[in-house]
């Protein structure tokens, strides 16, 4: 049985859940709400997540909180790959990888949204600062993001209360590891450095994500001033 070489075999439905459709829903996204549940000093500080009300579909509040943390990372990855694919800056095998991995991350986002329903955090606003617009910067960033996702899922898996959520988490965790290896191979570094991959705590993941400054406030394009047009 030959492995998959043709990307088109893999990619089916056209994405209807991407950021354009979400923007259309006119949800007010703020970058300060519910992201990673952390408090950090300085500009771009996040506030502690408040998990209130009944859990989605019988999932405990603790697990909802962890799922939203995972969703934030999936938003980050999906938006990153989507922007990179649309930028046209990628070529060859890297472009192909961005298409496939992006499609997977978008599918992850869709699945999380379906499970969490109204409990899902909104997609943050991302400023990738050119890392989606140059191939080398893209690969370097992709490696970092995928390695981070692996470590993040690994850190949370033992904390999950529901086995059904745990099964979902480990099934995604290993896929992110495949992504990490793939991007590393494309970037030209070894796909698997050590025999044992380390987990990362939520606090350290939050610090790393904050240090990228990828998550920013949504520009406020609405105001209450009187118009100053020509009339």
């Amino acid at each position, binding site marked *: 049985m030959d492995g998959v070489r043709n990307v088109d075999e*893999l*990619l*089916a*439905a*056209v*994405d*209807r*859940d991407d*950021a*354009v459709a979400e*923007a*259309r829903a*006119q949800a007010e996204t703020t970058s300060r709400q519910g992201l990673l549940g952390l408090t950090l000093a300085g500009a771009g500080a996040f506030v502690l997540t408040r998990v209130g009300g009944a859990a989605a*579909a019988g*999932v405990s509040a603790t697990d909802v909180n962890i799922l939203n943390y995972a969703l934030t990372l999936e938003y980050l990855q999906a938006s990153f790959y*989507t922007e990179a694919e*649309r*930028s046209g*800056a990628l070529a060859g095998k890297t472009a192909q990888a961005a*298409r*496939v991995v*992006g*499609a*997977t991350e*978008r*599918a*992850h986002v*869709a*699945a*999380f949204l*379906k*499970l969490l329903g109204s409990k899902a955090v909104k997609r943050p606003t*991302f*400023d990738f*600062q*050119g890392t989606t*617009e*140059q191939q080398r910067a893209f690969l370097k960033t992709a490696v970092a993001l995928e390695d981070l996702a692996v470590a993040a899922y690994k850190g949370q898996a033992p904390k999950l209360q*529901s*086995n*059904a*959520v745990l*099964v*979902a988490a480990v*099934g995604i965790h290993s896929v992110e590891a495949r992504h990490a290896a793939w991007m590393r191979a494309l970037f030209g570094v070894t796909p698997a450095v050590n025999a044992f991959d380390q987990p990362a705590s939520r606090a350290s993941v939050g610090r790393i994500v904050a240090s990228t400054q990828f998550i*920013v406030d*949504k*520009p*406020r*394009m*609405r*105001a*209450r*001033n*009187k*118009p*100053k*047009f*020509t*009339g």
Partner: protein
Amino acid sequence: MKRTTRLTAALAAVTLAGLLSAGLGAGNREPDASDFRALPPAPASALQISRSQRLSSGRYLSRWTVVRAATAAHARPSASSRVVAELAASAPEGTPNLLTFLQARGGADGAVWVEVRLPVLPNGSVGWVQRRSLGPYSTVDTHLVVDRAQLRATLYRAGQGVFSAPVGIGTAAWPTPAGEFAVRSELSRYASPFYGPISFGTTARSAVLTDWPDGGFVGIHGTDEPWLLPGRVSHGCIRLRNRDILRLEALLPIGTPLTIR
């Protein structure tokens, strides 16, 4: 209390027996195939992950960004090329200075440069800005077209018309300029019936009212004289009946490209 103690002891016995039968502390033992049968299968996943989703075609997409820090727009993607315009972080309305993205390229310095439409005269000006001076990218699939001959505004979403209304535009003396622009802000809750309930700022500028305070930008707004519409009645602004602009507001994302023909 006594009952709990007995249960606890019974449980302890079960656990120890389990450990012993698993061979721990009892010397070498071959793994038994029956052990593997006894292990339950994984429960169903809480997440239903569908087949991977490829992106829709970018045909109707337009991208916009904002000025993050005041910067210069150059004629070419190089800091040493001629400065076309200085860009402030804010538009006169007080909202972030919105720029329509045209293309990105690696510049002479190795960093990313972005070609954008500039909200400066002459209308239609473009220039190159350093990526780091810009904020996050946003994407819309809408397009607002104002037809000056038909005196009509039509909003398209993914190529489909979703809104249409009659408009008032500039008089012959103060014409509404033609060209490619963008809707860059939304103003509301101001106390001025002249502009109606909602106004949208655009990047279009009057080519004749060049001394107008705050740049002479063309806006899209409501009116307290709806009977003038459709018509050539304004100083360049695009006026809609109040009920039409309220309808438009629900459909028009900021950053939507605006074509005035």
